């Protein structure tokens, strides 16, 4: 029983962080119908930002979030104004290949600056600490904090999108950009803002993840793919969809633990022989595949 509960708890917690990872992707797609293949690389930048500011300023990793947010916002805006803006004039395939190129560029830039070795945080208020919530279920403090702060960041972005004038203008741009221009909404600035918000939310997620995950220049693709699966499941452009799909995908990543639960509870011998942990992410991509076939609109539909 404890394996099941801790697997589900771990799945939900990581799911909340993954939802924040996917949030930026779904916002950028929602506002300008562009799929950012470099999304995971933004997360990598967030991880390095968290790691390096914590180490160089000797502050707790959790205090690096504002730095990560600023770096992500600026990076997002620069990418849009300096690069993506021009891609939008070209055909769809140019946009796909363009952000793919951005991914390769950021990845290789990180390789040049940081080298290929794994780096991890070893110090911090919460690093290495954990809570025992009973029934033998132990939750690492870093993951709990990451989940809580992710939900807070997600909520803040949701409020920005739904309760403010600027958020309404973003929504209008997403729904009909020409119509939005006829209302006097500066859609170019809205696009840049979407990239800023998208960049900031994913770098915050990165700075949270680096508390319990080591970083290297190649880490991005894994998260890009997970974010794709979440956005597909939740519905492209849907913010609430990204949250719930994030939780679902979080639990899917814990399928090996759930598998173990059944293996040992019911003592099923053949199940014990399957190296399930090696297939952790296969289930996520399988789910992605099934969603695209069965319900391409995702759970919450496109854009809302």
């Amino acid at each position, binding site marked *: 029983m404890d394996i099941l509960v801790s697997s589900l708890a771990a799945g939900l917690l990581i799911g909340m962080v993954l939802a924040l990872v996917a949030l930026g992707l779904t916002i950028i797609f929602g506002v300008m119908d562009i799929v950012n293949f470099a999304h995971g690389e933004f997360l990598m930048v967030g991880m390095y930002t968290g790691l390096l500011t914590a180490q160089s300023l000797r502050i707790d990793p959790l205090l690096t979030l504002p730095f990560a947010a600023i770096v992500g916002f600026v990076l997002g805006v620069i990418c849009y104004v300096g690069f993506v803006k021009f891609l939008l004039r070209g055909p769809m395939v140019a946009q796909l290949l363009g952000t793919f190129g951005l991914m390769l560029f950021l990845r290789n830039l990180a390789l040049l600056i940081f080298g290929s070795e794994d780096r991890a945080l070893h110090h911090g208020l919460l690093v290495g600490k954990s809570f025992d919530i009973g029934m033998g279920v132990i939750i690492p403090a870093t993951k709990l904090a990451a989940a809580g702060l992710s939900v807070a960041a997600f909520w803040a972005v949701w409020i920005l999108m739904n309760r403010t*004038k600027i958020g*309404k*203008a973003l*929504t*209008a741009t997403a*729904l*009909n950009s*020409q*119509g*939005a*221009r*006829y*209302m*006097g*909404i*500066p*859609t170019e600035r809205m696009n840049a803002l979407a990239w800023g918000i998208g960049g900031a939310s994913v770098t915050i997620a990165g700075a949270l993840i680096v508390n319990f995950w080591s970083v290297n220049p190649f880490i991005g693709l894994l998260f890009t793919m997970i974010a794709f699966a979440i956005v597909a499941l939740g519905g492209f452009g849907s913010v609430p969809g990204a949250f719930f799909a994030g939780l679902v995908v979080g639990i899917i990543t814990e399928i090996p633990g759930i598998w173990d639960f059944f293996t040992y509870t019911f003592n099923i011998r053949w199940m014990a022989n399957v190296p399930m942990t090696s297939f952790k992410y296969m289930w996520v991509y399988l789910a992605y595949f099934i969603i695209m076939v069965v319900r391409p609109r995702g759970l919450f539909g496109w*854009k*809302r």
Partner: protein
Amino acid sequence: MSGRQSRPGASTSFPGSNGVRMNRHAILETKDIKVRYSGLAVLHGVSVSLEPSETVCVLGSNGAGKSTLLRAIMGAQRVFDGQILFMGREIHRLRTEQIVRLGIIYVPEEKMLFTPLSVEENLLLGAYVLNDKKEIQDSLDFVYNLFPALKARRGQAASTLSGGEQQMVAIGRGLMSRPKVLMLDEPSLGLAPLLVDEVLGTVRELKRQGIPIFLVEQNVREALDLADRGYILQTGRIVAHGTGKELLESDMFRTAFLGI
């Protein structure tokens, strides 16, 4: 511009022109504008003007360039040559959102509503350029007063409305920012005859309130009856111009619309 005098008559009849020196009477005018789509000329030097409190209609068959003309004024279509002046100021190099801020509102033929959003959210987005809450609320009251049907449906998604109601939202949304010039592109397109009368009745009401209106219409007779003046656009050229009565009796009108 510097040597000319502003005409006092213009500023008394039209509050928006206060303090702005006008070259002449026109609040909005195009001077010999040329527009091309990928090298193909669509407008070959079109000059139209709109005076304060005036309703002017632009008539023409499909593909004559009516919508292109309005889009060019809105900065949504690049002007290849010529000039567009709004209250004496060149606007043809401005971006659409800057032109909207100056006070020109375009209600496109396609309506371009934000369909998943509610009626009220759509209307409020129309007031994007306003900042004063009181002003926005007054605009909202004004629109609900003009279209009581919309007030009843304020919380409903725009996509659930009928074609006529959607047109009301589109026009209402355009009025929210208190435009100095309203440009309506085929507001009665695709509506049942009864609704056509209702929409054109609204245009008449707006005219009565002194809002300068540029109207593109397919209901030629009603449009000419309603408008102070009209232009006939044929394959990118103005071929006739005059009051409604003059146009209805002109040879150009007969050949263009009646095929005689």
